[in-house]
């Protein structure tokens, strides 16, 4: 395979593809940074399930976190890293390639 012929399917990322992780990435990509509790509420996930997915994404270097105090309680803010953003967008490109260019919804 030549370097010039870039295959969009190469961007398919199995770490991101798990449905909840894809949704987490979609939210963080749009929001820039989001509080853990908000992500949980928006995606309808329990704290433990969200934590598990965030750990996988953090281990892959796709998500970073920042801790901040609000109303005397510590809150965790999540964001996509540069690597995570690239991986997420590459994954979306792969999904679009699978669907095909003629799909009117894309």
């Amino acid at each position: 395979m030549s370097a010039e012929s870039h295959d969009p399917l190469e961007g398919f990322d199995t770490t991101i593809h798990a449905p909840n992780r894809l949704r987490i990435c979609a939210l963080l990509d749009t929001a820039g940074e989001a509080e853990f509790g908000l992500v949980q509420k928006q995606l309808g996930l329990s704290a433990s399930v969200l934590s598990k997915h965030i750990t996988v994404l953090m281990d892959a270097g796709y998500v970073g976190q920042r801790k901040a105090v609000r109303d005397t309680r510590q809150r965790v803010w999540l964001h996509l890293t540069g690597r995570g953003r690239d991986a997420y967008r590459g994954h979306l490109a792969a999904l679009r390639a699978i669907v095909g260019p003629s799909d009117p919804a894309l």
Partner: protein
Amino acid sequence: METNGVRLTPEQARSALADTEHIRASAAALSATPWPNWFFITLTLYTAALPITYGGAMADPDWLLPGPAWMGIMLAMTAVYGALFAVAAKTWRNKTGVALRFDVLPKRATVPLAVGLPVLLVGAAFAFRVTGWPVWLFAASLISAVASVGFHLAFVRLHRKVA
């Protein structure tokens, strides 16, 4: 364990894309949450006052007050505005749970504003200095206030539309 050999049908890929689009839309609605009214009023008053104080500071000869007094007023109100912005931004972030972004509105709206308002500010002060007619400053003040109201309404509309 992650499987590397995942195979997707176009229908599954389409469904995944539709899901991300749904999430994107709900996150965009949060990002488009308008400022609280108290800060919207503060911002409008600040943008309306800035051309007048800047024009006063640049006036030659002095207009109503000495130039340094206008400059002092402008710096003081900018400092107060900056402090209130910090409070509003923190409140907004805590309320919405998302980062404050400046790229929510389309560039066709924000770029003319980013270029136009400074030109208006400097241009009105220059015109006032040359002609001595304060109407330049009042016109710039009015346009700035209208722009502030217009952008606030755009956020309100966008927030409702995508929410």
